[in-house]
């Protein structure tokens, strides 16, 4: 399956789960998508600690700043709780279910996707795979003992939701009310001059 068909499938599944998937050619386009989203009306975006050194995503930060966004590193749950928008990155996206895999040992990094109201997730097109089975392989690798062992991995499929009351679907319970996954074709910075 070519990458656009795969993305279309991912988008369909994620949208069925209440989330949104968008395609970006590069980081500049991704930054534009985030910056113009209504959740950024206050121009406040929570990011994981040390995101600047996170490959290849750190390079998006200057682009976001150029859009006038105020970037705030997550530190405590109190600070992040109900912040309008947060950004993190995924290690895998799965077309079969519209899911993204988030792996973060750091609590501060995780609360971005747990407590903010709109959660943006960056994932590269290379990491978009057809089937959940590839998550199994990745999970094996990530949980392998050693200093790189990932202790807390989440397969996230859409925003938080409940149907506990009369089976009425309500989006946004304890977790984010919106999930926005941006699949980036080439996670480079693109043409810097056009972004500025």
């Amino acid at each position, binding site marked *: 399956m070519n990458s656009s068909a795969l993305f279309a499938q991912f988008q369909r599944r994620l949208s069925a789960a209440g989330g949104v998937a968008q395609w970006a050619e590069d980081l500049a386009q991704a930054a534009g998508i985030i910056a113009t989203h209504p959740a950024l009306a206050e121009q406040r975006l929570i990011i994981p600690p040390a995101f600047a050194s996170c490959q290849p995503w750190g390079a998006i930060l200057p682009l976001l700043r150029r859009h006038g966004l105020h970037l705030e590193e997550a530190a405590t749950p109190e600070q992040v709780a109900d912040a309008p928008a947060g950004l993190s990155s995924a290690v895998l996206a799965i077309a079969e279910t519209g899911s993204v895999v988030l792996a973060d040992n750091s609590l501060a990094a995780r*609360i971005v996707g747990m407590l903010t109201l709109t959660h943006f997730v960056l994932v590269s097109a290379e990491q978009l795979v057809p089937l959940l089975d590839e998550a199994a392989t990745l999970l094996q690798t990530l949980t392998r003992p050693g200093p790189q062992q990932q202790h807390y991995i989440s397969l996230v499929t859409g925003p938080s939701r409940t149907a506990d009351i009369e089976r009425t679907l309500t989006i946004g319970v*304890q977790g984010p009310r919106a999930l926005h996954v941006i699949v980036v074709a080439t996670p480079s910075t693109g043409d810097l001059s056009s972004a500025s």
Partner: protein
Amino acid sequence: MMSHQEHAHQTPAQLLAAQTSAAEAVPLIHNMPPFRERLQRGLGDENMHRALERFAPSWRQSRQTLFAAAEAEYGPDYSFAHLRQRLRAAKDEAIARQEELVAQFKERAEAAGAVVYEARTAEDANRYIYELCRRKGITLVVKSKTMVSEEIELNHYLEERGIKAVETDLGEWVAQLDHERPSHMVMPIIHKTRQQVGEVLSRATGREISREDVAEQVAVIRREHRQAFLTAGMGISGANALIAESGTVMLNTNEGNGRMVTSLPPVHVVLAGYDKLLPTFADAITQIRLLARSATGQPMTSYTTFITGPDRPGKEVHIVLLDNGRSAMRADPRFKEALRCIRCAACANICPPYQQVGGHAFGYIYSGAIGLVVTPFHHGLEAAAGPQSLCVSCNACETVCPVEIPLPSLILDVRSRVATREGLPWLKRLIFAAFARPRLFDLLARLAALGQWPATLGTPYVRYRYLRFLERLPGLGALARLTRWRSLPAFALRPLRDRVGVRADLAAARQRPHRAGELTVCYFAGCMTDRLYPEMGEAVIQILERSGLRVVFPRAQHCCGLPALNSGDRAHGLTMAKQTVRMLEHALDESGADYIVSASTSCVVTLVQDYLRLFEDLQMQSWLNRTRALAERIMDFTTFLLRVLVAEQRLPALRRPAPGSAPVVTYHDSCQSCNCLGLRAEARQVISEVLGLELREMTDSDVCCGFGGSTSIEHPEIAERLLARKLSHAEETGARLLVSDNPGCLMHLRGGVDASGKPLRVLHLAQLVAEYLP
């Protein structure tokens, strides 16, 4: 309970006795109202019925659509049938290799920094968690939904010792605030309306919360729990799987509370039964593909979290592995299959009586079919005694179980244990004792046929209007009340056995010269056809003979034992099973018949499935072999009609209905036909293709009509409601003919039509076909 090996040298009688002792768990559940009270409350809860009846069809639809779509897109490896085989195999492997996998899980989890504690009893688990709180000075605990914590009443234990436990799943929280237990394993407050939820939330928060606006109600929980999440000293979760290869805990949640419970507090306790073990991540993925689709008809839960030891310095992860009756299940060759359960509650979602009474009555702590099966092990046989009586043996649960647990037969095993422990009611005992004696039964049936006149006034029915005057009398009053919504059938003055003439002469059938290719069929009518509906039997014989077959009717035939087996009376069931096997063997020998045909799918299922299980359980190897040999020759009438009479072009050309005057037919799938024998298309093919009649499908054609054998006598309220639904679905089609292929259903449907005066004719498929014979 004993293991299979220990049974080795016991006689069937000893085995029957031995299998009645269920594992004894200490019943510790406090404030659990008695079964009768729960049942009455459930029957009276109109809101709950509406909710469950609305949920069931939409769940069925979305579940089916999801599995079908996956199969269409990814191929047969992703079909429900294939996925469930895979998960079943993984679970069976985990059950078989439990010691080894526990050791592996422990080693990997501990290497990742977790602490693993093995709790033998509920008390052990509760004490461990409480001691942990006490040592660390923790007074507030946040919890995400865990059924195991309900199983051991952890909240109660902690609260008695001054520790506050807050449920953070929306439904669990509302139930907790209202001092209730979840009535469904996945949707804990499906029995509550938004108005009720609004009231509970207003009371709990001291503020006025909308009674109508669900979004506002949901927003309350986010606000109310924020502080608890930030200050709790401990988070407690369950586990959807324990993955041995890496020591990982897998959790499926939707609301996002699960990730907060497991992330924010400095101590995370995982409470899980040994049954949650899975060998690998690949197995966990198979489970993911089955769980949400089976549970709520959604493709995936929002969050699937994989936790492998603590994520940060200072954080503690404790994993409490709970036995509490599970090793007794594992030691039991039958019940160990129930350890495959992934708690999806599909067996509740599809269960007709569950929809009528809800999970508080249809279960104990665990609800739905699986609740009836595991309760004896976790909470004692006594706790399962009432709930198990609600099962109508429709077998629908087994068709949707994502791990192929033979739920219906395990429920019957529980029933027989209850029956042996508590004894059957005297009336049932008497009836089955008579049933087990063919000659006595014959005499009684004939006497009843002669003596029934005051109740039938010579009509084919025992009607309420004839009996109404008895209503106030003890005993007979109950009989009169039973007929209020369903007339009972009269005994035939001439049972089928009196009408078969020379066909009863088995040896003569063999001696008469045969034409080339002529088949001989041994007809097993079943006692209901024989005694109540001989005209159905005559239709069968007529079709077979007009197709050029030779029919023999062994007069020694009697009840197959189904009523006794279904009531948990295995001793009498066994007697009748042996009688029937012996009788059929003899009939085949004498007559040289090629097939045994029955137009009662209930009897067929008893003969080809239930006997095997019975003889296997009682380790009666030679009877098992004899039954297997017989089973190869047994066929239900509908299949026989298509596969032999139609396919081999033996059926004569049927009369075609005159255009414009053809009756419209609607078809009811008997549970035994569709759920046990897998027949769905066959009867429809007969109606629309062979007969050329218009078939109009009714809603829920494959949902139980409510007969459910003796359940309709024990719980008439349930049988009445299921019948009313069935008949109104049939009536809505505008069809005038209601057809099925199982005399039990036909009796129930006919009685309901007669009592309600609905404009429907109820016929056996054979009777319909016979009407069009040339």
